[in-house]
């Protein structure tokens, strides 16, 4: 039986024959070199310190800083979001929840057939990676530089569509309202609509 089990390399490997060389231990550094380290800390006391006095002084972020999201609008006030959920699918942290809805003649929120009916971003989950922004086919979703996202309730950190929508600017009408006369959603997409047309105003709007 013992002949059957072949011993691998038996007798060839002698642990004493393994070549080794003693590792040279560097001794303590010369005194002048050690003093250098002390000089670094001492001289630092008289340098300008780098602290930003945050709540008092708010340093501007870099222009492309990943802050809170924003849902943009077309120049006439219609929302760019079409409720496609691509952002939600792209999100690695599962922070976005979208429900699409149909645009009807009486409730036209965005150009074309569909709009985002429910749009939520959970900022307790969001990791601000920006993959949602890359995924958005209509440039509806971008990020702002706002970084003060802290609160005392979990619920408060789930931002709804109203919290994320960009404010109405000059020449915009608050949706729902019909599309610009004579323009298709492709025109909207190409940026042919520059401002709201007076005929778009619905009852109650000016």
């Amino acid at each position, binding site marked *: 039986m013992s002949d059957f089990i072949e011993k691998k390399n038996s007798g*060839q490997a002698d642990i004493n024959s*393994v070549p080794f060389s003693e590792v040279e231990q560097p001794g303590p550094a010369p005194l002048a070199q050690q003093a250098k380290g002390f000089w670094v*800390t001492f001289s*630092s006391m008289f340098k300008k310190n780098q602290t930003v006095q945050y709540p008092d002084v708010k340093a501007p972020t870099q222009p492309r800083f990943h802050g809170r999201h924003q849902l943009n609008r077309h120049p006439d006030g219609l929302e760019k979001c079409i409720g496609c959920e691509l952002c939600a699918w792209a999100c690695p942290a599962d922070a976005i929840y979208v429900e699409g809805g149909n645009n009807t003649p009486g409730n036209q929120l965005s150009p074309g057939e569909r709009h985002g009916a429910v749009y939520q971003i959970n900022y307790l989950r969001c990791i601000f990676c920006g993959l949602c922004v890359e995924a958005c086919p209509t440039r509806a979703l971008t990020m702002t530089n706002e970084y003060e996202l802290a609160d005392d309730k979990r619920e408060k950190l789930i931002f709804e569509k109203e919290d994320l929508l960009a404010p109405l600017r000059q020449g915009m009408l608050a949706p729902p309202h019909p599309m610009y006369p004579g323009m298709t959603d492709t025109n909207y997409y190409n940026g042919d609509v520059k401002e709201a047309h007076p005929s778009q105003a619905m009852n109650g709007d000016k």
Partner: protein
Amino acid sequence: MNTLNNAVLIAKDPGWLIAVKGVLVFAICVLCTLMAVWAERRVLAKMQLRTGPNRVGKFGLLQSLADGVKLALKEDIIPAAADKVVFILAPIIATSMCFMAFAVIPMTGEVNLFGQKTALQMTDLPVSVLYILAVTSIGVYGVVLAGWSSGSTYPLLGGLRSSAQVISYEIAMGLSLVAVFIYAGSMSTSTIVGSQHQHIWNAVVLFPSFVIYVISMVGETNRAPFDLAEAEGELVGGFHTEYSSLKFALFFLAEYVNIIAVSALATTLFLGGYHALPGLGFTESWLGGWFTLVWFFLKVIFFFFIFMWLRATLPRLRYDQFMKFGWKVLIPVSLVWILIVASLRVLQQEGAPRIATIAFAVGIVLLVMAASSLIDRSKAKARAPQPEGDAPNFPIPSLPEVNSINVSGGK
């Protein structure tokens, strides 16, 4: 200031004055701790290009007070596995002992306190320095007992490390003080201060002792780079891991009072105590003698700055390096130094001619040089490759067969 010895001055103190001084010394210690915590955080921040606490009070001066209040209001947890009595006793021992060390530190020269001519020093023993060493080593019990009674692994390891550390460094510390005793001819703090006032600071004449004391006082107080007992990266919080609320605050207080105590001792024994810098002796009579307190604290602050500077600069030592340094460097060096100081002292007292003293000093220098060259040579010898000898002629057990190693490149 013609009184050289505070001992004579304070011997006539009435009982109520001693009590007043006790309260005063206690208040000074607590106030110093508050300021020291703040100062340390600020200076450390400056060394790291930060600002440090600056929001509570002017320049953040009340930060440590706020922290103290916060600690006091926190929930006090005693772990189920803890030995309750010892667990509570440990911080009390640690804190009370380091306050006691201050009783024999002379902080001022002759001053007028409530119409009494006295000095700000509670008592003066003929063996004050021994008393300080004894009291601070009892303080270690606090740390060891805290580690043991917590009923948890990390505190136990921290407590063990701390006891080993403090014991080894206390030997070096005690030996460095022996030279001071020999030179001053006394163990009383006020006499040592007086003798330095007559001659020159011990830090100058006994420079090696001074260096050894400064190193070992950092080891003694468990401070960076010797803070192995509470190494955050290895032992969580070390001996105080399980402590919370006021008991933790007591350890915190003990640590800082301890630092101030060893700094005060260093000031007293090596930097001339409460006396002014050489050449500024006229300032000692300002404010009716109370200006000596300023000098005393300036010197203490100097040592405290060294503590902060070390903490900002050096990384923590490995345990074996730390022990090696204590036992193989500090203790032998201080032993040799004591021999030299003692011999010189005897030569001086026996009225040996100057030439004999000089010859002795030269002889010592030659001996040291010879010893260091011998050490270098033996080191070089050890580093040289050993000649290959024959197989040993005593039986050695055969090595087990190794299957996995195949360095010779055979089949």
